């Protein structure tokens, strides 16, 4: 237990001392939200105003970013440095390594969502009862798990230098196509069809459901898609981990 807590503590310190990595992850969602959410905030989209709608989708966007960068890129980099292998020579439970990174991604997610709530209600036109906020917060932070699995899979497949560009190449288009920047209904029909196959879309629908702005698909479809994605990425990550074990080093 002590090892787990220490691992989380030092994971957090590492992130704090690398503001070049942690600040963009924390601030980009809020900056984007300030631009779109506050500017078009008073407009109505479906049953809620844009400011409220976009808190849910930029929250989704931010949580995914924290998972892909905090988890995926850091695993790829530490694998490349031999740090993961150094840890595996110790009796440390290997789970502690991954649990601490998951905890970090969730802490980052919680910070991002909280900042969005604050900005949305002070600068923007967000009107949301506290119980709704709590629900949205819970869905967003929990959904982080799926994208940590995604990040982990990328972390084991990508090289230490290519991980960050690969994550950007996947993350940004996927976020746009899933309707995280602009409401999905604003996007052309073919893109809406594609979105159905993207995990962030289903994550955003679960978030939007808490504020009554989802597209009304059965909840089982969204939850099912998230679970399938988690298992799939988890399996890929596991294969990557095993592949590392069999690797020949000179």
């Amino acid at each position, binding site marked *: 237990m002590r090892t787990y807590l220490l691992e989380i503590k030092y994971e957090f310190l590492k992130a704090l*001392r690398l503001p070049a990595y942690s600040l963009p992850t924390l601030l980009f969602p809020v900056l984007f939200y300030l631009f779109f959410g506050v500017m078009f905030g008073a407009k109505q989209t479906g049953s809620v105003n844009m400011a409220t709608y976009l808190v849910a989708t930029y929250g989704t966007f931010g949580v995914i970013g924290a998972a892909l960068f905090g988890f995926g890129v850091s695993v790829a980099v530490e694998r490349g*440095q031999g740090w993961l292998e150094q840890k595996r020579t110790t009796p440390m439970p290997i789970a502690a390594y991954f649990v601490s990174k998951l905890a970090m991604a969730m802490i980052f997610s919680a910070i991002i969502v909280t900042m969005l709530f604050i900005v949305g209600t002070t600068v923007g036109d967000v009107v949301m009862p506290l119980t709704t906020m709590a629900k949205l917060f819970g869905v967003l932070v929990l959904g982080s798990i799926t994208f940590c699995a995604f990040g982990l899979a990328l972390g084991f497949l990508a090289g230490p230098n290519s991980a960050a560009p690969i994550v950007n190449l996947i993350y940004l288009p996927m976020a746009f196509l899933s309707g995280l920047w602009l409401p999905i209904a604003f996007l052309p029909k073919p893109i809406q069809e594609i979105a159905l196959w993207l995990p962030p879309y289903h994550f955003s629908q679960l978030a939007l459901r808490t504020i009554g702005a989802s597209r009304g698909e059965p909840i089982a479809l969204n939850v099912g898609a998230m679970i399938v994605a988690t298992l799939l990425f988890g399996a890929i990550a596991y294969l990557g981990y095993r592949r590392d074990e069999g690797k020949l080093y000179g």
Partner: protein
Amino acid sequence: MIAAQFTSVQKQYGMVEALKGLDLTIRQGELLALLGANGAGKTTAVRLLLGLAKPTSGEVRVFGGDPRDARTRTRIGAVLQSARVPETLRVREHIHLFSSYYPNPMPMDEVIAAAGLQGLERRKFGELSGGQQKRVLFALAICGNPDLLILDEPTVGLDVEARRALWKQIRAFIAGGKSVLLTTHYLAEAEALADRVVVLHHGNVVAEGTPQEIKGDSATLEDAFVEMIA
């Protein structure tokens, strides 16, 4: 007393047979130097000893246990070849974290002293020189109070002074009755430190003995080694 033992260990990576039935014993209290050209199987042997890989056939035992079992690894410490650790954590923090993995870690001050890191406790890893970084890795390897220390080319890239300093620390570790497996490309290092030398070539042991015995009539261990693997 035996610290670690390989019994007819064969390790296959795809088409490559890295070890071809290796038999090897590390006795308690000795420093065994494992020599060999690149690709001879040294690193494979180290990885098996640390539980990072599994033998294709045969058996690896460390203090009677399987190194793939975490309990066995409580008695092993290792400096891996070219390992780097996160640069933004301080020396003391790294040691603190690694000590927490072991049931009976050494006190922090002893680790710092044994690795020659006095005065650097609060420095971040990324701010240290190459020699100082190696000493931090050495500290991480010994902080769990291991009985077997595995050093995979620990002095690569160090200047003479830093290398000699690390030798001194390795000798101090052995003096406590503990065992060391050292792989190295510097044959003078093996000559200076080893009680026993094992030469690997293409996954087989081709020579075994004290540095004196291996040297035979050759002027240096290096001459004997070059002749052996020619």
